[in-house]
């Protein structure tokens, strides 16, 4: 079936270090979304990527969508303790803009002050 794999599962970094999580789909995606979930909270939308090779930045966060629209990455520069949480990618198979989103298992980031 359709799968979205995300690595690593856990990442511990020292404050100020960079962090990257990777997302790979078994099928081509129409778009990919990234969410952040703080401990005890619910997922909060970060960004959506639609175009092949697209790169978007939000302050210290950089999101990329692969040329084949099968993989994506989230890179955080100079992590801060406020970055702690679990980051999920979610891909939409096929060509639709709505419907089923397949979530990766998430990468849990811990930042040591």
């Amino acid at each position, binding site marked *: 079936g359709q799968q979205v794999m*995300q690595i690593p599962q856990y990442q511990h970094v020292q404050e100020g270090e960079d962090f990257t999580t990777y997302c790979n789909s078994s099928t081509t995606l129409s*778009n990919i*979304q990234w*969410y952040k979930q703080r401990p005890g*909270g*619910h*997922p*909060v*939308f970060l960004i*959506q990527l*639609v175009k092949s090779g697209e790169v978007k930045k939000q302050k210290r966060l950089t999101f990329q969508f692969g040329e084949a629209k099968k993989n994506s990455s989230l890179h955080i520069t100079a992590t801060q303790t406020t970055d702690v949480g679990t980051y*999920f990618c*979610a891909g939409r198979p096929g060509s639709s*803009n*709505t*419907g*089923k*989103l*397949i*979530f*990766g*298992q*998430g990468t849990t980031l811990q930042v040591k002050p």
Partner: protein
Amino acid sequence: GAGVSQSPSNKVTEKGKDVELRCDPISGHTALYWYRQSLGQGLEFLIYFQGNSAPDKSGLPSDRFSAERTGGSVSTLTIQRTQQEDSAVYLCASSLLNQGLETQYFGPGTRLLVL
């Protein structure tokens, strides 16, 4: 309301009982999704509504699970004859297409514990 709301926030039930979970989406959002999240796990898609119809029910784990949406707004997820493996956080999200892009807004979830 300002966001997606879900009730109850917590539910403890005995194995074999039925439970009903409610989701109030953001006003005007046409799409509504149900997900299940087990402890430390990712989100498992359950069902998706567009208006009152459910084009995709492929994620429902068994025929004990059902969901409906009325008036294009409130949705209920019903689990019949609950089992211990049903224990999880059930998350609802609503969304609206804007210029071809869809953003999902999640509710706080219902934490279900089946004893």
